[in-house]
């Protein structure tokens, strides 16, 4: 088994353990509902002001499920609408990491 295929297997196991169903509304193209995605959050890069209260949130989705994500695509989870603001391609686990911001 190739290394890439092994990581793809690992990615599938991560999704089986941590993914939740969301609704994916692309700017163009058909809605994907449900889509399995894994939420993650960490500190955002430092910003003005005394504190460090900005957060960086992202959804990870399988590349096989979302072939061509675009900035502005919307992920709906638990009635929160997240807009994609940054797209990182992860070849190691065959995923997209979609940085998002709340749209309302």
């Amino acid at each position, binding site marked *: 088994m190739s290394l890439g295929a092994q990581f793809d297997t690992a990615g599938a196991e991560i999704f089986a353990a941590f993914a939740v169903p969301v609704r994916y509304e692309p700017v163009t193209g058909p809605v994907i509902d449900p889509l399995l995605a894994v939420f993650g959050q960490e500190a*955002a890069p430092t*910003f003005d002001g*005394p*504190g460090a*209260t*900005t*957060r960086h949130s992202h959804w990870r989705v399988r590349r096989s499920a979302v072939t061509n994500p675009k900035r502005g695509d919307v992920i709906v989870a638990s009635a929160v609408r997240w807009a994609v603001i940054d797209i990182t391609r992860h070849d190691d686990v065959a995923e997209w990491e979609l940085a*998002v911001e*709340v749209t309302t």
Partner: protein
Amino acid sequence: MTAVRETIWAAVDAALAAIPGVAKYERCASGDPADFPAVQAHDGGQVVTEGEAGRTRYRMDVSVEIFVQSPGGAAAHAALNELYSGAVTALVGLVGVLPELEEVEEGDLRIAVAPLADRRRLAAACDFAFHFSTRRGDPSVI
């Protein structure tokens, strides 16, 4: 006896808190704002610019930080520009109202966007120089 600089700061507080649309104003904040739009003012200290026989003249540096958090870059930026304008009007407008204050100069303006944050947050930092003088040896008497 109240220091002249404190009299000026009290006026700064009132002027900035009264900017239309400001949800929270704080002087010398030690944490990030939690309510938006927010305005924070910071005391950058002062330097003596002139010493006369009976008077000491100062330049006090005041930095005003404005924070806006709302979806969409253009809307947040427009709100930030509006609050910046309000801050300049409020502080420069203190000249002639406060007898302690001789001049307020507007300085640099810096705009920043919180990178990769999950709430669109923009900040503006605007510098001001406050010129005032007190009796020599007594900063509480004009």
